[in-house]
């Protein structure tokens, strides 16, 4: 019970780039600036997946980044939530059927929320994180 409240009050984020063009990555950094301040939800960007509760995946999964994605997903402690940020992460976008694309992230790992847009607006990522925090509140 105490753990459930604690997780929903302070979900730490880990940002994972799987071949993104850096557009969505810049918007995630803008999310932590003072205008769309996501730290009021208790979120914090951490550098290690072993400290994180939520994983933000950006970019179509390239052949090189498939193994790191699976390894980092295994490193996340339970309960874990994956949020796909941007069009590329949802369905590979304009890179679909490319020679080095092994498919969008939901083919490889279970995904909770999809945040649309190219690139995703900080307001939109904010709403996606709120959906992810609802999962911790329900204790799934």
């Amino acid at each position, binding site marked *: 019970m105490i753990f459930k409240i604690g997780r929903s009050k302070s979900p730490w984020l880990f940002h994972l780039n799987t071949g993104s063009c850096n557009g969505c990555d810049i918007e995630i950094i803008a999310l932590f600036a*003072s*205008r*769309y*301040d996501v730290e*009021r939800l208790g979120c914090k960007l951490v550098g290690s997946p072993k400290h994180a509760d939520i994983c933000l995946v950006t970019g179509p999964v390239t052949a090189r980044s498939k193994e790191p994605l699976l390894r980092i997903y295994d490193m996340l402690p339970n309960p874990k939530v994956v949020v796909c940020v941007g*069009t590329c992460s*949802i*369905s*590979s*976008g*304009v890179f*679909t059927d490319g020679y080095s694309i092994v498919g969008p992230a*939901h083919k490889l790992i279970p995904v*909770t*929320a*999809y*945040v*649309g*847009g*190219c690139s*995703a*607006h900080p*307001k*939109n990522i*904010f*709403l*996606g994180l*709120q*959906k992810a925090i609802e999962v911790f509140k329900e204790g799934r």
Partner: protein
Amino acid sequence: MLPLIRILIENIFKPPITEEISAANLPEHPGGFHGYPEHDPSRCIACGICQYFCPAKVIKISQIDDKMNYHMDLDQCTCCGQCIDYCPTNAIKHRPNPYFVATNLDDFKVDHQIKLIKCAKCGAFIPDMTLIAHKLFGEGKPVPKHLTMCPKCKRKP
């Protein structure tokens, strides 16, 4: 040093810059934003120009019996606005805000049915060109005969 002190004193009286965002109360977005495209089936004539110009293969138009099925995979859309620029009847418009969050991939699919009319001579199904005629010849004028016939009947004398 003095300008810095002035800025500090000004900031004491300013309201906070942070925007209030919650799922129930979404803030207004400034105009002219390239949001996701919204399709209006009542204005669409299923000409396929948007399908030709779409760089991400979002739009797929196919004929099913007496109707045209207009399918959009919005999960691949990059909101570039090509379909909106080239649409001859302004059937597609940008959404004014960027909000689009889903927990299920089926929320990104859009399916619309567009009705077709029959050719005046042979009865084959052709797109309704009334809106194009209004654009060319002005509102309220009668649609010319060659726009109500299929290509085969047009070539016959």
